[in-house]
């Protein structure tokens, strides 16, 4: 009886044309083993084939693509038939695509290793649970706000966590939007107001996540919040307190263009009361008794079904590019300083005290440079062209130069924007700026900034004396993203951005079920892309959390009493405190165990195991032949 089945997926030609599947089948053939082959096991026909051909099997091994893609699907199909022994060997990635000269031999060894462990393998026990219809959104920028709104509209309870005292993130400081140059706050602020009105959304400002535990569908999140000294539940945003503060600039206020929540915050480093003086002016003037000097750090535990990460990005620190002089030379600013100056609404911000006669935009400040950011952030070109148009509007007589590497202007309208800029006299020069300096090339330019560059199309050196240099840095993940990644067990990519589960077909998912990504935390995005990805994440969350029940696999370690010497090393080594000494010896707490295997490898007497005792040893022996 052929109790064991091996399914070889051709994956179109991906495996079939590289690995000699007939040879594989020949070599693997055995008394108890049936070898089956299908062009696309993941297709509906393929799945049907898998189900049909694995009837009455004791165990099934599928040799196909990486487990991220279809392992769950296959396992679910087989489990529905009561088949517990299942293994997937990704011969596409591990042999077909990476073997130098003999993918077939490599695939054969890997499959043999899989078979050696198959007999010992059990699918992990699964529990069904009812997901909690509550969602935690980390980050209150454009992405977080969008996701929170969408999820609450769909009926979920949403907890929105923001590190700053006010929501809005970087979108608050946008002036016009690429590529149509519409007013950003006209587009964005209605969303903020909608959020302020939304039901079932609880906002935590100045807060961060400190712990996440539990299972997808039922997480426990602990959050910590800094004091605001003004009570959110009492303040109604009249702003009287702002005018009475004797400190300049005021120690109490809402220093953003559209404060949401419209509740001021007290800066304890400026407030006289925190300096030991007896000022209580704001407290006295407040009609609602909202000022609370006794406010303290707080902790709260939330039970949620899922988490959306929307921590966003920030511009690369331009001061690290020493030869561009940012932070050292007063008339060298970044695009974001410029954008802030535009959006601050004042007629003449500091940097425009005297109208600039000549302005240079330095694209790719630090980007595509192995010492800084080796990648292209894609959206900065458009933002720079947009800002230069706005500058030209304000100062029609200013000469404006862009030094670029490649102009990447997306959307059909992007190209139009570029032509518009050219028509207005803005000049585009291809070449990297070598230096920005206060030392002029010739003494008559003393007092202006020198920009040294090369126009690589004309092969001509450029020395420009300018009045304003606008650096256009690329984007990096927001501060604290790495820490959050460890907290959530998510993997950051090389550049530090969160990696989606699959870039193309599952951009909102992560390697952990029940945690999704929204917006620029997974890479530079402009506002429209951010909103789209946040809606996608919200949709994923809503779909997942509205299911009546979900199946959560729960592998966990098992304990063999007869081998245990009770040294309790496992108890200490467990990062999740899932093992506890007990009267009978050792108790495994399944709700805490994450099946990492750390205790298994620490146990000196082989009393603990995952999957099966010595499963990896079997594989190792088989793979070494």
């Amino acid at each position: 009886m052929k109790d064991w089945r091996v399914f070889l997926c051709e994956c179109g030609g991906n495996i079939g044309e590289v690995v000699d599947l007939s040879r594989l089948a020949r070599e693997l053939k055995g008394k108890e083993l049936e070898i089956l082959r299908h062009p696309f096991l993941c297709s509906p026909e393929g799945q049907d084939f898998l189900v049909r051909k694995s009837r009455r099997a004791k165990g099934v091994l599928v040799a196909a693509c990486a487990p991220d893609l279809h392992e769950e699907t296959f396992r679910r199909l087989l489990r529905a038939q009561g088949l517990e022994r299942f293994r997937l060997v990704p011969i596409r990635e591990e042999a077909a695509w990476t073997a130098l000269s003999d993918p077939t031999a490599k695939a054969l060894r890997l499959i043999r290793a899989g078979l050696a462990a198959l007999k010992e393998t059990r699918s992990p026990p699964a529990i069904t649970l009812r997901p909690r219809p509550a969602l935690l959104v980390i980050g209150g920028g454009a992405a977080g706000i969008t996701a929170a709104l969408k999820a609450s509209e769909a009926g979920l309870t949403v907890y929105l966590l923001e590190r700053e005292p006010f929501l809005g993130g970087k979108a608050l400081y946008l002036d016009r939007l690429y590529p149509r140059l519409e007013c950003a706050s006209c587009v964005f602020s209605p969303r903020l107001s909608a959020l302020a009105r939304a039901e079932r959304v609880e906002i935590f400002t100045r807060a961060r996540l400190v712990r996440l535990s539990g299972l997808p569908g039922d997480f426990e999140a602990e959050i910590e919040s800094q004091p605001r000294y003004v009570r959110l539940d009492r303040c109604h945003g009249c702003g009287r307190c702002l005018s009475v503060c004797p400190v300049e600039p005021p120690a109490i206020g809402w220093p953003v263009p559209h404060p949401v929540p419209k509740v001021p915050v007290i800066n304890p480093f400026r407030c006289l009361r925190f300096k030991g003086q007896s000022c209580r002016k704001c407290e006295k003037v407040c009609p609602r008794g909202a000022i609370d000097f006794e406010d303290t750090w707080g902790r709260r535990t939330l039970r949620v079904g899922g988490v959306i990460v929307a921590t966003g990005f920030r511009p690369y620190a331009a001061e690290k590019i020493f030869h561009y002089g940012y932070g050292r030379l007063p008339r060298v600013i970044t695009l974001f300083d410029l954008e802030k100056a535009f959006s601050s609404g004042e007629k003449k911000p500091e940097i425009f005290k005297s109208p600039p006669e000549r302005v240079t935009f330095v694209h790719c400040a630090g980007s595509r440079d192995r010492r800084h950011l080796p990648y292209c952030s894609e959206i900065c070109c458009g933002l720079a062209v947009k800002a230069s148009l706005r500058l030209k509007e304000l100062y029609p007589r200013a000469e404006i130069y862009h030094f670029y590497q490649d102009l990447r202007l997306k959307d059909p309208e992007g190209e139009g924007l570029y032509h518009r800029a050219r028509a207005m006299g803005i000049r585009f020069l291809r070449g990297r700026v070598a230096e920005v300096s206060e030392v002029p090339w010739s003494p008559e330019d003393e007092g202006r900034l020198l920009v040294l560059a090369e126009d690589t199309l004309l092969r001509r050196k450029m020395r420009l004396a300018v009045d304003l240099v606008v650096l256009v840095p690329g984007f990096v993940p927001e501060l604290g993203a790495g820490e959050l990644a460890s907290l959530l067990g998510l993997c950051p990519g090389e550049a530090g951005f969160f990696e989606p589960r699959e870039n193309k077909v599952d951009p909102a998912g992560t390697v952990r079920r029940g945690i999704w990504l929204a917006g620029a935390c997974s890479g530079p995005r402009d506002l429209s892309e951010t909103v789209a990805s946040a809606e996608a994440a919200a949709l994923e969350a809503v779909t997942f959390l509205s299911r009546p029940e979900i199946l959560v696999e729960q592998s966990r370690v098992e304990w063999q009493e007869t081998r245990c010497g009770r040294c309790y090393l496992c108890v200490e080594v467990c990062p999740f405190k899932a093992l506890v000494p007990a009267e009978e010896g050792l108790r495994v707490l399944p709700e805490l165990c994450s099946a990492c295997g750390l205790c298994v490898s620490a146990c000196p007497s082989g009393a603990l195991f995952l999957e099966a005792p010595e499963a990896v040893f079997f594989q190792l022996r088989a793979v070494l032949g």
Partner: protein
Amino acid sequence: MKIALYNALSCGGCDLIFFLEDLPGSFLEDLEIVFWPEVCDHREEVLRNLPEKGLEAALICGAIRTRDQEKRVLLLRNKARRLAAVGSCALYGGIPGLLWEKGEGPRPVTEVVSCEVAVPGCPPEPKTLREALEALLREEDSGGKDRGPVCEECPRTRRPFRIGRLKKWGGEEVLSGDCFLARGIICSGPVTRGGCGAVCPGAGYPCGGCYGPLEDLAGERLLSALASGVLPARADEFLEGLVDPVGTFFRFFLARSPLLRLRKRRDEEDTA
């Protein structure tokens, strides 16, 4: 009952156990010791003159280092109906197993000939020896394979632990009655097969592992256990304190370690 006793590379400590009064009476009755170089006859021809399987049993202590020792053991195998390997040296190479040099080193008796009875220990506890001899008489093969670790028999108090720094044996740590590992003193208890009654830890001395590995690759498992107990911040301190990893992890069974075999293979290739 004709028997022979033979001592290969060993300290002789196992022999002394035979003088204890605790041996089974049925064994001592009608006992005829044909060959025991240290005590009575040492001439090889005595053995050679015996018919095949002419001895009821032979008890062998010590590890095999020389060609002569190997020949003698092969001869005993031929003449004795049943063979007992006595002590860590005969079973796992024991302390002499640490004595390895380029390309060679002592081997356990069990790697030269097959033995029906195994008597672990350095030296074996009298109780262990008596049980083994009884098994020998009952014509059973013995090895005590079903036993758990020494810790199961250990009287010291167990609690979850982390290792900050390795400590030398002695002082307050010994008297406290707490698990040695929890006190930062290396003890092989968790990877060593029980049966000794944990006499050493009970008497205030950490287990060295003389009853043999609980499992294959016990040295690596002890290494893993210790490295798992170390506080990450103090890993370098731990590493520094670990002066003799080979003697620490493989005190009684280095001769059986696959890693040693790798080393030997490399040496052979070098000389070739």
